[in-house]
């Protein structure tokens, strides 16, 4: 490929320069429509009076030159070239009455419309960017005073919510009036019973938490209930003279020891 590129001796230097100028530009084009718009400028006429036939010739010549230089053109440039070749033949040949579809003139008109519309958008974009702009020509307040938002929560409940809530509880009672859901409550009675059984085995000072029943230390609600009842039961046992209790300082662990009955 590279070799071939340097063997284009048949071309004059001027030809090559002209071709290369366009090729270098190819990168700068945003697609075939943009290239067509640029080519149309060489006609120096109102876009509405543009000769689409001439434009098609220019475009095809451009593609030929690019091919001659073995330049790979993107597919859409080639699709456009094929279509323009078709359009050119339509514009040049007398219309075939058996053929359906739009006439060459209609197709040319639409292409001219597309070019004009693209040019109009470019002009509009330029005008837009040339306007007085915020932060460049006019300015917003520099020293803003933020609004202090005071958020207030309000809870709502209707009388119906209340009654339904109550009804929910009472109907549950209808079916098991005296069975309470006390899964999460470890009563003082339970704790006392448990402690009475356990204290016989403890010799030295032991952290009260070791007396918590199994399965009650995970869930915070259950742990709280078990801790409270175990503590209350311990106090009860201290009162009975069967246990000693101590705490080194605030929030330090509470420790228990079996009271030596003999020393009493």
């Amino acid at each position, binding site marked *: 490929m590279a070799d071939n590129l340097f063997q284009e001796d048949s071309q004059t230097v001027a030809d090559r320069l002209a071709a290369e100028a366009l090729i270098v530009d190819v990168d700068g084009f945003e697609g075939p429509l943009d290239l067509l718009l640029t080519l149309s400028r060489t006609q120096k006429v109102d876009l509405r009076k543009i000769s689409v036939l001439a434009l098609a010739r220019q475009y095809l010549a451009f593609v030929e030159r690019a091919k001659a230089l073995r330049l790979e053109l993107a597919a859409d440039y080639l699709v456009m070239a094929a279509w323009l070749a078709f359009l050119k033949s339509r514009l040049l040949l007398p219309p075939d009455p058996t053929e359906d579809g739009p006439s060459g003139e209609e197709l040319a008109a639409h292409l001219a419309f597309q070019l004009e519309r693209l040019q109009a958008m470019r002009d509009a974009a330029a005008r837009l960017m040339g306007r007085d702009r915020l932060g460049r020509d006019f300015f917003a307040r520099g020293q803003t005073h933020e*609004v202090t938002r005071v958020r207030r929560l309000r809870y709502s409940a209707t009388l119906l919510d209340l009654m339904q809530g109550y009804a929910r509880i009472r*109907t549950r009672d209808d079916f098991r009036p005296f069975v309470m859901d006390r899964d999460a409550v470890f009563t003082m009675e339970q704790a006392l019973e448990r402690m009475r059984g356990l204290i016989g085995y403890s010799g030295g000072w032991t952290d009260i938490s070791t007396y918590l029943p199994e399965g009650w230390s995970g869930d915070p609600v259950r742990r709280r209930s078990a801790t409270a009842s175990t503590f209350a039961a311990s106090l009860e046992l201290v009162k009975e003279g069967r246990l000693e209790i101590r705490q080194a300082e605030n929030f330090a662990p509470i420790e228990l020891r079996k009271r030596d009955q003999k020393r009493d």
Partner: protein
Amino acid sequence: MTDPIDPQTESLFDAPPMAEQERMIEAILFATAEPITLRELEARLPHGCDPGEALAHLRRRYDGRGVQVMKVGDAWALRTAPDLGFLMHRETVETRKLSRAAIETLAIIAYHQPVTRAEIEEIRGVAVSRGTVDQLLEMEWIRFGRRKMTPGRPVTFVVTQGFLDHFGLESARDLPGLKELRSAGLLENRPPPGSMPRLVEDAPEDESDEGQSELFED
């Protein structure tokens, strides 16, 4: 847009007219993030301007307006008029539905007041979280009643006047009983298997009378 005097068309040596200087200072004070000193103003204005005089004009112009020209140290700034500060606070009220636990606890307190926490737990069948009670206390829908004359003298809860106002009740006795709830279709109409459910009106507890009367003491 207006048609202001273009400073470029002015003679190179003449300062812009005072009205124009005032406009310039107004724009600068508006757009700067910091208060600005006279010296800085002078540096930013076209040559020959008198920012002191222009400021005096501007200050007079804003006299009594919603925004005022104020001196901050030795600098100048535009500030909201002090009496309009209240416009800079925006209170947003968010309404949230009360949790089921809170509604049930509230309902029990309303129907059984005065009621202790242990009693609420017994009726609901689950422990009452501290947060639920605190929330209801904070909303001022419940308050502490008198202590119960039982061992440990536990505190009781009663509903407040605010509660009655919110629910459009004249008294806690206006709360419908179970019979009415049932006839209103709020309860499934099933014959209770054991004892009739306790109705508020005929609640056997001696405290209930006491509680209601307590409610209307204050």
